[in-house]
């Protein structure tokens, strides 16, 4: 990975990272999406309080609130973050012509690509980490002491892996088409197609297993856990999704209930004989699928970037 430029590869690489980081944090789009995320987070914390006050009740303490919602960044949120983070990082440089002075510096295209990737990753990590902290503090204030907070980093990791899948897709489309608009719209198209087709496939065909292998939320199942409430044994149901968007929840659930099984009713042709898979298997599969997408799309983006001619 060292360039034979006589200087230090790390310095050059970090220069690219800084170039990109400064660009990222000054983007209006990025500032917009961060503001939106914090506004939504605040609303999701405050609205229940307001509603229960209006109905004259008291909000019940919920020690599971933070661990079950994470930062509350859903599929759409991850998609939006991904688009905003990287829709311009390569195609935007071609569109504005700034790629010309950049690529004629003694840095290899691979270095530029990796630097941009790391900068996007750092920005994403900081944005998510602040959201997680905000939601944890807010959740604690509103719902009282919280369980299993030590699992939050796992949830953060999962959310980032899920977002990376979308980021890799945006980067690949953007690099190949050299159009930021196409990168955003193309990925949005994929996102919408998958979001709309998921329930259709799940409910009207018995081919829901396809959903395990597509980016997005995946197939829907239930985890049933034997637990006790005030000494009475009960069965608690937690919904579980198999797709790449659900890695955070699956990681947390696996850490808490390592031997849990997930039951799918829609996967089976006979609803009376549901299909059951271990949660560990579902988690590993979604991690493998996510990694395959991330590596595949990033490789495609890198390969095209490496070979592309700067006609602009």
């Amino acid at each position, binding site marked *: 990975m060292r*360039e034979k430029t006589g200087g230090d590869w790390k310095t050059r690489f970090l220069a690219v990272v*800084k170039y990109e980081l400064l660009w990222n944090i000054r983007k209006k789009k990025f500032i917009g999406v961060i503001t939106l995320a914090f506004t939504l987070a605040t609303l999701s914390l405050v609205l229940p309080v307001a509603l229960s006050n209006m109905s004259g009740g008291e909000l019940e303490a919920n020690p599971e609130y933070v661990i079950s919602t994470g930062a509350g960044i859903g599929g759409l949120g991850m998609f939006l973050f991904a688009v905003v983070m990287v829709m311009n990082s390569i195609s935007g440089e071609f569109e*504005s*012509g*700034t790629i010309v002075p950049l690529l004629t*510096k*003694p840095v290899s295209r691979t270095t530029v690509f990796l630097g941009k990737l790391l900068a996007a990753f750092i920005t994403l990590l900081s944005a998510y980490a602040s959201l997680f902290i905000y939601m944890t503090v807010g959740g604690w204030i509103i719902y009282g002491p919280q369980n299993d907070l030590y699992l939050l980093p796992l949830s953060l990791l999962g959310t980032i892996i899920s977002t990376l899948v979308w980021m890799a897709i945006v980067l690949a489309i953007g690099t190949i088409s050299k159009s930021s608009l196409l990168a955003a719209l193309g990925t949005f198209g994929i996102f919408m197609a998958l979001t709309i087709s998921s329930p259709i496939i799940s409910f009207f065909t018995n081919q829901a297993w396809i959903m395990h292998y597509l980016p997005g939320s995946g197939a829907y199942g239930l985890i049933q856990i034997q637990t006790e409430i005030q000494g009475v044994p009960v069965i608690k149901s937690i919904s579980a999704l198999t797709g790449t968007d659900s890695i955070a929840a699956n990681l947390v659930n696996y850490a808490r209930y390592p031997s849990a099984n997930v039951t799918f009713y829609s996967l089976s042709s006979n609803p009376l004989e549901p299909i059951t898979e271990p949660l560990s298997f579902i988690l590993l599969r979604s991690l493998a699928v996510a990694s395959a997408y991330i590596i595949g799309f990033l490789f495609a983006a890198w390969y095209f970037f*490496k070979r592309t*001619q*700067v006609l602009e």
Partner: protein
Amino acid sequence: MKHAIETVGLTKRYGSLTAVNKLDLKVEHGTVHGFLGPNGAGKTTTIKILMGLLRPDEGTIKILDREIRGDTPEARLKVGYMPELPRFPKHLKGWELLDIYGKMYGMTTQQRGEQIPKLLEMVGLKGREKDLIGKYSKGMQQRLGIAQALLNEPELVILDEPSLGLDPVGMVEVRELVREIAKEGRTVFLSSHLLFEVEQVCTHITIIHKGVALASDTIQNIYSKLSGSSTLHVELATPSDIIVEALKKLSFVSDVTPDGNMLTIELKTNDDVRPQISQEITKLGGVIVSMNLKGQTLEDVFMQLITKTGGEK
């Protein structure tokens, strides 16, 4: 002789259009080499290939004795390049950009600290370096383009139309800058379609038209190779047929046309023969009021070469 730039058989096609056609370009070390051609001649295309932005279809390239093949970042270490109408990220401040580019060149903090203020001063951006580039005018971006091309004290400076978009003062400054870089023994390769600019600063020129190099030599050699030659206008106090006849007999004179007090003397040579002419006229008792040599300019050469090939095609 070692060359700063050397291409052999360089060819680049855009679909059916051959933008650069079997170009053999040789730029000697320590020269100021002008790359001259009308719009669409293939100058920018050639320069982009040299900088690794475009892949040639055929041919080989050597920059500072290093072969360019694929992405060759180490070849750019000692090269400064100013793109045609450069654009820089508008979210960065002028000095931030130079600082980051400096790191990419592997410059130390101290080197950057010395070089950047010096360059900002030189290109007239001092006082504006803390503004976002998005707030710069086109000419200011052009000036930033010059600064970043000189950042790493390059051995070879490639400038693609450096005066484009500059005001007249800026254009003069660019010329002075080029002369200064050349004085330090560095090589400058600059493309232009401004003949006077090239004429004033370049020691060598390559003329390119429709992707083909029509001439490549020192400026002097280009002039003296001219087929046509110069014209001398002489104004006499009183017209005289004897003088006209005597001048016609001189070996380097092809024709003399009198028009009142004015003589238009067609010369066979491009050398300055004014002393011989004035001697001849004075010998015959003539009195010279004024004398005006109109040598062939680069413009004449250029037009001659271009129209010749233009007519063939």
